[in-house]
């Protein structure tokens, strides 16, 4: 089930949907690099703010995945995840708890902020009793058989995309949970981004109050498919918004090819024990 590149720290997904501290609607929201308001119309500035926002750190969580294929057959996975931002890199560890054939399989990933450096990743397979260095490889491939890809899980460089404002204001959700959003279209302009995402273009519904995407629709080049990703159950964890449920559907000609539901449980941030020693690749306590 596991190939070398498909395992990725899904916590990145969690991180990509979190936000800086809660801000009321229409208030100026500011990040380290830029400031935007609900009236902002510069799509690139908004996406730069989304990508550079502060985020939760030293995060622990449990993930439950359900993959439903076209025929309605389901597969389920559970795993534990830890993530930490060090300033120079993002460290993530995932350990699978079920199903039984992959229990104990783990992936340690060190994603360097310096894009010139290759990421460091070690995959531990308990059946082989071996922890081996792997390449992140094909980032457009499916993550663990889900509807998400490696590139869906990682932050993207805004310089790799061209952004267009499609709608200045659009509401997503119902009742009290409705979010006022910008609708922004992103097109990869570099070959690297085209290859890594596998998308011709994507549309993002970005919450104005939380400055994070709550929906993404992507045009998948391979097979001319559409992918719909939705972030639900947004909760504050350690002062940061986090989606606790992610749904992804892949469709073609209005036919649903597969659906993935990812639910987060036991999420906590700022855990003191999630530190440098925890991710020590030489100790690899999780393999013992």
């Amino acid at each position, binding site marked *: 089930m596991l190939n070398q590149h498909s395992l990725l720290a899904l916590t990145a997904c969690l991180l990509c949907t979190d936000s800086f501290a809660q801000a009321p609607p229409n208030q100026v929201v500011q990040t380290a690099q830029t400031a935007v308001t609900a009236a902002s119309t510069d799509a690139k500035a908004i996406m730069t703010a989304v990508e550079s926002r502060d985020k939760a750190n030293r995060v622990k969580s449990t993930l439950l995945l359900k993959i439903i294929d076209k025929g309605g057959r389901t597969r389920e996975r559970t795993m534990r995840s830890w993530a930490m931002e060090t300033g120079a890199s993002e460290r993530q560890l995932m350990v699978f708890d079920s199903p039984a054939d992959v229990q104990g399989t783990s992936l340690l990933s060190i994603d360097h902020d310096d894009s010139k450096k290759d990421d460091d990743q070690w995959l531990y397979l308990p*059946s082989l009793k071996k922890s081996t260095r792997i390449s992140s490889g094909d980032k457009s491939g499916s993550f663990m058989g889900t509807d998400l890809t490696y590139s869906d899980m990682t932050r993207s460089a805004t310089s790799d995309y061209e952004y267009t404002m499609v709608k200045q204001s659009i509401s997503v959700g119902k009742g009290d949970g409705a979010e006022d959003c910008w609708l922004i279209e992103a097109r990869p302009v570099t070959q690297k981004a085209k290859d890594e995402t*596998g998308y011709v273009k994507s549309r993002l519904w970005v919450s104005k109050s939380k400055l994070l995407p709550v929906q993404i629709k992507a045009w998948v080049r391979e097979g*001319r498919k559409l992918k719909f990703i939705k972030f639900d159950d947004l909760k504050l964890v350690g002062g940061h918004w986090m989606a606790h449920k992610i749904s992804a559907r892949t469709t073609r000609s209005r036919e649903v090819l597969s659906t993935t539901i990812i639910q987060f449980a036991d999420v906590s941030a700022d855990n003191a024990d999630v530190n440098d020693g925890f991710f020590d690749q030489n100790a690899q306590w999780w393999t013992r």
Partner: protein
Amino acid sequence: MGRAVLVASILFLATPLAAQTEDADWGDDQDEFGFADTPDIDLSAQPTLTALQLKGFLRSRAGFWLNRLDEDPISTLRQSLDLDGLYKGTGWRVVLGGHFEYDGAYELDESRYDDATLASYRARYFPREQYVAFQTAFIDVKFGRQTVAWGEGDVFSPLDIVNPRDLREPGLADLDDIRLSILATQLGVVSAVGRFELIATHEGYFGEQPSPLSEYSPLAQVLRANDLASTFLDDRTVRYKHTQARYGLESGNIVARWLLKAEGFDLGLYYGWLRDRQGVVVLPEGFELLDGLLDAGVSVNDLAGFPESIDLELDHRRYSLTGASISFVTGSFVAKSEWLMEFDKAYNTGRVSASIPTIDIDTMTLLTGMAGVTYSGFSETTVSLEAQQSYPLSGGTNALFPVSAFQTAARVSKSYLRERLRLDVAATAMGLKAQYGWLMRGGLAYELVDALKLTALYVHYGAGTASTVGPFNGLKTHDQLWLQIRWDFQIL
């Protein structure tokens, strides 16, 4: 063979490339039906990990000899059960595992097999890991039966020196079945400059080989080289007997490794003072007299007084080694390499093509290098290549086995249907022109439901053309098709 792998690779890779297009005119920009709500996952129904864990898997396998479908079609009917228990306390843990197997194919026509073959293949129990371990943040100690995977290579890993191997069915066993646990004490120390491991093994267990007269034995053809020998062996059993006692201070090994997993690369340094896993064949005293007997026109009846059980002695002589390993990533490539020098390593000399084999023992100093690369830049695909070459620096002449044969291995893995279906094609060859034999296998695994997998595996052997004995020697009618179903379960 290489061409077949290449063609297969192109076929696997061509599909997604051909389907690519830059045209984005599909899907209505306003159509958002895909955002419809999904049901919540019931968190309370999920399994929770406890201090005591018990899991395992059941496996049923049926195999067919493709070259002998008319006369002798069944190669294996194996049922196996693996059980693993783990209890984790604070700073300590106990692991207890075992593997049981029974192969019904050896009941079908029992008289075809000698006793050693039946003992080796019919019903077996192998202890898996069975140890107690204590650990702090920087030190861990483990005592008991252990499995330790060293080295960087996937197919060739000459530095993977700790555990004996199960080589009863060359090229057929699953990778996770090959290493056999060994009684050992392990000390691990973690520091800022890597991890140091010191392991002392406490038993002379050299693994499982095909019994000398079994289907997979490279010696079977040699031992049955002429009609007289073949008739003589029909009523006898031939088994390996190890010179070294199973337990005893003299039987163990001492091995050590320092491994640094750093930014951009992994580097390991190795040392071993150990007994040769393969061993050298020691012919029984007076064996050379057989040649004279044959010349004198001896018949099978004249040999009736010979014992029914013949021991073929394997002497696992001690030698030492030092080595280094490295692996690093560049883009979608992972490069791996191992280098080692083995000192005073015993090897067999002589020839087996004579009516009576002439076999002697000598020692050599052997330098071995392995290099490999894995590429995972294609969609859902991994391609890997490995090559290994040994150079005798002293000795190594007139070797009975091809000690310096160039070895290559290639593998392509591709998953489909969101990793529900997986295709693996692999090939390995000994010798630049595969003159010492080669093997190709292709497997298709389909996950019916979570943790229940159906696999079809095809294996083709090339016996090679050289007169020197290689691992696939004599495997001329051994192509097989296997069907396997495996169910992994968790009790606690």
